[in-house]
């Protein structure tokens, strides 16, 4: 059984779904950030698979590179926000963060 584009895409879909479910259902803000990283990795995997098997040329890799760049920025900022919240509220529980409520 040879490996092709479909296998990589399926793996990527599974990974993305795991990340999505986790991001929506976990209460710990840091875990949610981790799940978002998993989702981003799933996307990167897709991009690189498309580079390898056609569809996207070298651009696929370039995009993956930029996603990493943005992911690094995102996690840095996200953690800064979590820290800031933790400092003022002594918790990282997202269920208690409802300041934007009516």
């Amino acid at each position, binding site marked *: *059984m*040879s*490996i*092709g*584009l*479909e*296998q*990589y*895409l*399926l*793996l990527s*879909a*599974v*990974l*993305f*779904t*795991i*990340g*999505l*479910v*986790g991001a*929506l*259902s*976990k*209460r*710990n803000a*840091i875990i949610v950030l*981790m799940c978002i*990283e*998993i989702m981003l*990795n799933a996307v*990167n*995997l897709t991009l*690189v698979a498309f*580079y*390898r*098997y*056609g*569809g996207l040329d*070298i*651009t696929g*890799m*370039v995009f*993956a*590179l*930029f996603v*990493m760049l*943005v*992911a*690094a*920025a995102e*996690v*840095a*900022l996200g953690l800064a926000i*979590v*820290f*800031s919240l*933790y400092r003022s509220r002594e918790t*990282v*529980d997202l269920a208690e963060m409802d300041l934007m409520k009516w």
Partner: protein
Amino acid sequence: MDLQAVAFYVLAAMLVVSALAVVLIPNVFRAGLFLVLAFFAVAGLFTTLGADFLGAVQVLVYVGAIGVLLLLAIMLTRDVHHGSPGNRLWLPASVLGALLLGGVSWSLLNTTWADKAAEMPVPATAALGTSVFDLQNGFILPLEIGALALLAVVIGAIVLVGEKK
């Protein structure tokens, strides 16, 4: 089964297991460690796809920077003893996830892909470098903007986290 297939299945199994572990196990610190494992697996998968430069960057950025940062955050927030509880949304989220996975899988299995699987992967680091830094058709301007965004993020993070007087 050739070597790539073996590598793929091993890495895929490792990746799915560690990703599930991140979501499912209650210990936050261990979840962080499993995340690092998942990052390694993705780096390996990149390599099987001939993107060895990206694999290296994956290890450096995700494992070295993001993973460590997350673990540091977990330790600094001292919230470990609360574990990793789910919220009221876990059931609808799972249903949504299943539907999404089903939909995506169905559509990608029913699509005819231009598969170039026959060729052996060739390391493309030089081609990637040329593509990014090429002055005519390259991505030099987005790269600079990305650099600027990183700078902004660093400043922003300092402002957010820095001690308030």
